[in-house]
Structures are given as structure tokens and as C-alpha cells.
């Protein structure tokens, strides 16, 4: 049914006035927001993972994809309100080691040293793993080349999004992926052993460091950056001897690094803390998860930075939360356990100023749980990334 001309006119007037009022409000209160829209997440128990600790019944005010304020027990009249009373909110999970968008896309197995490759080139925002990760609450991922190359390439740290237009990079070049894992040893080419791998890497670093009159080889650009200190190494090592080699290599070249895998990392203790080496653990690929969590908790108590990773699509995206839960069962406080999948990985990746905790000025990435986050019966109600609902 359509109104008469007069009605239409009044409707038009109402529309004009309301749009004027809205735009005035937007101009007055938005203050540089993206679309002049503010979002108020109301009434939830917030695990901020920051200095504010746990806030119950607090409100999150979000503007322009960032957290503008955390207000306790107070409304913000100009904002669109979403009520999550009685629910729990934790920051968006950070997965520090993933193979999202496929196995072969992240493996350039034509050479052993492919340090110039950038993992971003392999990223496919519409791949099913992105869906899986977002549904599990992972909003930030470190995309890594595979373990099969001695130097696989450069990792990319990005915010996950299903929209190919909104690819947001935190760091295009994060770490240099180096592998001492069993996968790198093969009969038909060098290196065929762990000794050979270390020797080869030493040689590369030596040549990369002092070029002399040697012409720069494009495939060694990443090594060169590593030698100059522009990149940090991310070393895949899981057995005792591999981790030992990695630690030795790090101290030989006076580098700080991150070790990923870490199946037998519990056999090292104080040493890791002294050398300031962080550990990324992928628990569900191992045979004895109980032992892992027991030792992980003791490492945490020593002060070693630990983060759990999913290794998507080899592992499960939901594995992050389950890992934190199993750590909680080892007597680690709930907040500390949750930090191993939020704040600590963000700190290890060097992006803690943007993601990893809910603080003013950081990205509004968070996961809403129906109950306590480390209760298996509570489920994920919503996942927000930069203030936008990305999964439900």
C-alpha cells in the first residue's frame, strides 16, 4: 500500500530530518569512527588478559573496529547495544602456527632453501580452514611455510577474514621459518641428516652475513634479513636432539628465536628461560598429551613463554581451547591458561600492541561464550573481529 502525495511528503520530511539528526549525532560523537557507528557490548564478564584482569558486568565500547573504552556498569547512549549479560568474553584467539589454505600451497619443494618466499602469497581467504578457524574463535593467524624445506620462507601474520577485500596484515614478514624436523631429511638430496642440516644453515648464515664479492642470490634474501636482524627465526623442532640443535644454533648466532613443535621440550627447563626462547606447542599431534600439559605447566611456572598452536589443517582449530582447558586441569589458574592462547602468542609474534588482550586502543577481537570459557559445556555464541561479527 502506498500513501498519498502528502503522506509521501511527510515521510520524506521525516526521513530527511532523521538522517540530519543521525548525521549530526554521528559528527558529534563518532570522532573518526569508520561509519559513525559505535557498538556497546553490554553486561558480560570480560577476561581482559590485560592489567585490568577480570571485569564482571562491564561494557565494551567499540568504535572504528577498536576498543574505545571499557566502562563498568554504565550505558553509552549513542551506541548500538548488544546485550551479552551473563556471558563470558575473552580476546580473539591468536594462532601462532598455521598452514591455512592448504598443504601444497605452503610447500615449494623444488629447493631446500627458499628463504625468499612469503607465505602471504599462498593465502586463500575463502578456503574452508578460514571458516573453521573463525568458528573456533581464532581471529589472528601466523601463516607459515611447511617443515619440509630447511628454510621454508617468511611467515605472514594476518587477521582472518572471509571477505577477500578486507585482508588485514599485521606483519607481512613475520619470522623466517627454519626446520630441523625429521621432514627435512631425505635420501635424495642434502641435507640427509640433522648434522647436515645444521652445517648447511651455518654455511648459509656465514655467506649471508659477509657477502664479499659474492653476488646476492635471490633465494637467500630471507637469510640475509635474518643475518641483519630484520627477521627472527621460527624453528621447527620436536625431538630432544632437534631442540638441542636448535638451541645450540641460536646461541651460536646470538639470536633470539621461537621453537615450534616441541614434543620433548619438557626435557629442557631452566635453559629455555635463560636463553629467552619461546615455545609453540601443538599438543594433539603427540602420543602423550598428559605429559605435555604436565611439563607445559612446569615450564610456565619457570617463566618460559608458551603458546598453543593448531597447525591447521593438520590439527583442529578447536584444539586451542581444549589445550588451555587441559592446562587448567594441571593447576594453572584460569586466566593464565587462557593467556597461552591469547596474550602469549601475540607477545611471541610481536603483535601484542594490536591483538591478544582487551584493552583500550587495541583491536576489538573477542569471542563470546555462553558460560565460563574453560567449561566444556559452554559454547561459542559469537566471534567478533575488528568490531564485526564474523562467526555465530
Amino acid at each position: 500500500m502506498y500513501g498519498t502525495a502528502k503522506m509521501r511528503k511527510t515521510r520524506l520530511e521525516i526521513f530527511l530530518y532523521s538522517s540530519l539528526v543521525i548525521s549530526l549525532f554521528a559528527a558529534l560523537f563518532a570522532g573518526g569512527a569508520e561509519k559513525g557507528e559505535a557498538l556497546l557490548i553490554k553486561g558480560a564478564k570480560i577476561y581482559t588478559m590485560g592489567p585490568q584482569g577480570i571485569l564482571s558486568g562491564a561494557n565494551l565500547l567499540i568504535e572504528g573496529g577498536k576498543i574505545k573504552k571499557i566502562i563498568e556498569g554504565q550505558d553509552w547512549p549513542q551506541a548500538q547495544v548488544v546485550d551479552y549479560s551473563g556471558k563470558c568474553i575473552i580476546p580473539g584467539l591468536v594462532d601462532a602456527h598455521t598452514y591455512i589454505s592448504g598443504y601444497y600451497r605452503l610447500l615449494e619443494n623444488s629447493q631446500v632453501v627458499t628463504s625468499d618466499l612469503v607465505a602471504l602469497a599462498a593465502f586463500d581467504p575463502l578456503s574452508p580452514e578460514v571458516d573453521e578457524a573463525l568458528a573456533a574463535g581464532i581471529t589472528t593467524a601466523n601463516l607459515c611455510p611447511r617443515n619440509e624445506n630447511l628454510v621454508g620462507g617468511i611467515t605472514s601474520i594476518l587477521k582472518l577474514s572471509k571477505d577477500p577485500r578486507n585482508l588485514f596484515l599485521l606483519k607481512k614478514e613475520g619470522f623466517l621459518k627454519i626446520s630441523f624436523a625429521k621432514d627435512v631429511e631425505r635420501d635424495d638430496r642434502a641435507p640427509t641428516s640433522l648434522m647436515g642440516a645444521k652445517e648447511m644453515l651455518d654455511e648459509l648464515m656465514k655467506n649471508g652475513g659477509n657477502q664479499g664479492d659474492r653476488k646476492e642470490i635471490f633465494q637467500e634474501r630471507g637469510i640475509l634479513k635474518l643475518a641483519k636482524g630484520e627477521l627472527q627465526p621460527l624453528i621447527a623442532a620436536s625431538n630432544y636432539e632437534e631442540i638441542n640443535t636448535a638451541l645450540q644454533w641460536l646461541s651460536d648466532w646470538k639470536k633470539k628465536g621461537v621453537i615450534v613443535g616441541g614434543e620433548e621440550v619438557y626435557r629442557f627447563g631452566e635453559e629455555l628461560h635463560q636463553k629467552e626462547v619461546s615455545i609453540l606447542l601443538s599438543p594433539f599431534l603427540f602420543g602423550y598429551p598428559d605429559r605435555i600439559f604436565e611439563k607445559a605447566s612446569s615450564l610456565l611456572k619457570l617463566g618460559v613463554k608458551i603458546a598453543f598452536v593448531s597447525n591447521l589443517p593438520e590439527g583442529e582449530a578447536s584444539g586451542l581451547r581444549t589445550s588451555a582447558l587441559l592446562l587448567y586441569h594441571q593447576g594453572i589458574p584460569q586466566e593464565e591458561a587462557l593467556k597461552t592462547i591469547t596474550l602469549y602468542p601475540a607477545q611471541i609474534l610481536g603483535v601484542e600492541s594490536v591483538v591478544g588482550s582487551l584493552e583500550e586502543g587495541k583491536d576489538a577481537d573477542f569471542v563470546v561464550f555462553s558460560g565460563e570459557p574453560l567449561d566444556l559445556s559452554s559454547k561459542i555464541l559469537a566471534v567478533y573481529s575488528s568490531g564485526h561479527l564474523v562467526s555465530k
Partner: protein
Amino acid sequence: MVKRKFNPAFKSILFLILAGGFLMPPVRADDVIALKVGTLLKGNGEALKNAMIIIKDGKIEFVGVNYPVPKGTNILEFKESVATPGFIAANAYLHISPETKEVFTYSREDIYEYRIEKIPALNEERSETTPEMNLLYSIDPHSEDFARAWRSGVTCVYLAPGNLNVYNGTGTVLKTWGQSPQNMAVRNMVQIKVTLGEEPAVGTGGRGSDPDLHTRRPQNRMGVDSIFRQALIDLQNKSELPDSQLNPQELLFRKVLRGEIPLRIRARSYVDIKAALRYGEEFGFKWILEEGVDAYKYLDDLKNKNVPVIYGPVYRPKGRFDFNSENDFYRAQTPILLAKKGILFAFQNDSRSPISALRDEAIYAVKLGLDEESALKALTFHAAKILGVEDRIGTVEKGKDADLLIFSGDPFSPSSRLEKVLINNKILDPNK
């Protein structure tokens, strides 16, 4: 009797007309073709009723309503017909060389599935960076596909080497009728063809299986990314060297970085379009998007960067690459979205859709809502502009090549028949 006086202005006009008639260059009857058509669509958006076109030595001498034709000239009359400029395939896959080759490819979703495809174009597989390759002299001008092209109204095609390298080679703009490739060529080495995505990984060995002696880069997009950037970064490092010290390949890349030769980037998937946009920002070259079926995802970016799009083909068997029902709708709408946004675009065919489907692409787009003017421009004027040959072909104007099509009716009605094709001086009958 009143003496009638002529108005001086009228007098001068009369004089001018008479003088013009006498001063006009004498046109001999034997090398002139005179055409009269019911409607002429010039290709640049203008239309002319009852038009007359005079062609001399393969060039258009006159377009208008009336022209003093010398006696004895045979005037071809097509009173009910519609004439348009010859269609230009801004990218064509033709079986131009007697040899075709069977290669293994794989679909995007399932990399384990190998299939055999005939690659009609030429691939030099000694390296992934072969921009200096030129296929002009490898063309067989009597190939059946050229006849298929002009029989369907395509008078001009852009041909480039195949897709299996990252830098494949330079492309050529060719007429579809001629005695030798040299005489068919409108312009040679116009753009450098680049393939992004996983196609260059075909034929490099490895890929899932254990690597062997023949395995080399690229195995996937990361490798393609590195090869693409390596070539340009290597050249940037040589910026202090003069042109004379560079080899032909490096000279070509220097021209790319200076913006003298555009890159023609084949990026079927949105992932690769995004990568191409990134490269464009990083190196600042001019580029053209080829096979941009996913272009609808980045309309704003393409508009801001002034990137022309070569779109198509829609006509292809379903499920070949990454067609799924959700994307199909937008992909079919892409020409309309491009026209609305004001992005320069043209149509193309590929190895699975015949060259004769080029007009069908436009008819399909018109059926979905594209206006006929934009559709005709995409087939003629804009295609010529994208190829950088708009000074020679693309519209029916004085001084341009006489590439003309004569349809029995509206060219975008499927029931209209193509009656005559003119390429340079040659009148061809597509129905024989």
C-alpha cells in the same frame, strides 16, 4: 520579370561545394569500394542512418551520407543492414600452430585430480621468465581457427604465448585474414603476458610427489610470487646501468618499470587479482587484468588504479575450474558492474570456448542488462584502446583500417545474420 539575386552567403557555399567537387583528389574507380548501409554504428557511440562508406587502399576514406562517387564504381548496397566495426578479441586462444600439446593440469579444489588439456598456444619451458618470447613468426596464417574467427565477425585478435610460465612473452595484435603473419600484424610486442596462480606450476615436476631431477620452481603460488618479484627487483638493483648494458630481457623489464609496456596479468582467481594489485602498488607498473571473471570482488580497487579488465569467458562447461553456484551470478553480472563503474573492459575467449562465441558473450551480457552501446564498445573501440591500437582499428572513422561487419539486423539480436566481413580491402562472405 524580377531579376533574381542570389544571397551572397548562399553563393559562397555553392562555390565551395563546386570547388570542393573539383578539388577533391581524383579517385579511380577500380581500387575504391563504396558501401551504402541502412545504419552505421561507428563503435564510439555514434550512429548514422543511410550511411555511405568509401574505402580506398584498405583505409576508410569517407564516412557520411553523400559522396561524389566516380563513374563506374560498383556501389554495394545493404539498405536494411547494420554495419559495425570489426570485432576485436582482446585476448584469444587459437590453434595458431599446427602442433598442439597435451599437458597435465589440475583443478583448484582437488590437486590430486589430473586431466589432459590441449594447450593451443606456445610455451617455452626452459625457464619461467621468458618475456622476450614473441610468437609472431610461429603462426600459421592458414590455420582453420583464423577462418572461424572472421566467419564469426572477429577481424582482429590479440595473441600471446601460453600460460605455463610466469612471464610468458610479448603479445601481438593480428588481423584474422592475410597471407603472412607479418602482413596480418597490426602491432607487435604490445604487452607482456604474465600468469599468476597455480598454472605456472604445471610442468615443473614435483607437485605432491617427491621432488626429482626435473623439479623446479614454482610449485605453488609462493613460488610464482617469488619469481614475479625477483625479475623486477633484480632490475631495480641495476638502476644505475645504462640501457646499452642490459640484455633484451632486462630491457623489456625496464620498459615495464618505466610504464612504456604494460603487463597483461592473467589472474583468474580473486587471490591472484589481490596479488596483482599488491604488485602494482609495490612496483608502480601499468597493468591489464586478463580473464578477470573475479573482477567484481575488487571493482573499487581496479577503478582507482585505472586497470582495464578483459572479461570472460562465460560460455564454458561448468565445473571446470572454480565455478560454483554462488559466484556464477556475480560473474555473469560482471560486465554490467564494470560498465557502471566506468572501468574499461573487453571480451575474450579461451581454450575451451571457441572464438565464435565472442559475439555470444556480448549478446549474453546484453540479455542480462548491459546496454548495447557499452557492449559494442567492449567488442570494438574499448578493446582497441586496451590493446593500444585505437589509432588504427576499433571505430569506423576516416583514416582507420576498413574492418567492417555487415549484419542483417541488430548485431545483439541472436537472429541477426552476419552478411559480409571486410578486412582491409578484402570482402569476405562468412556464409560460404
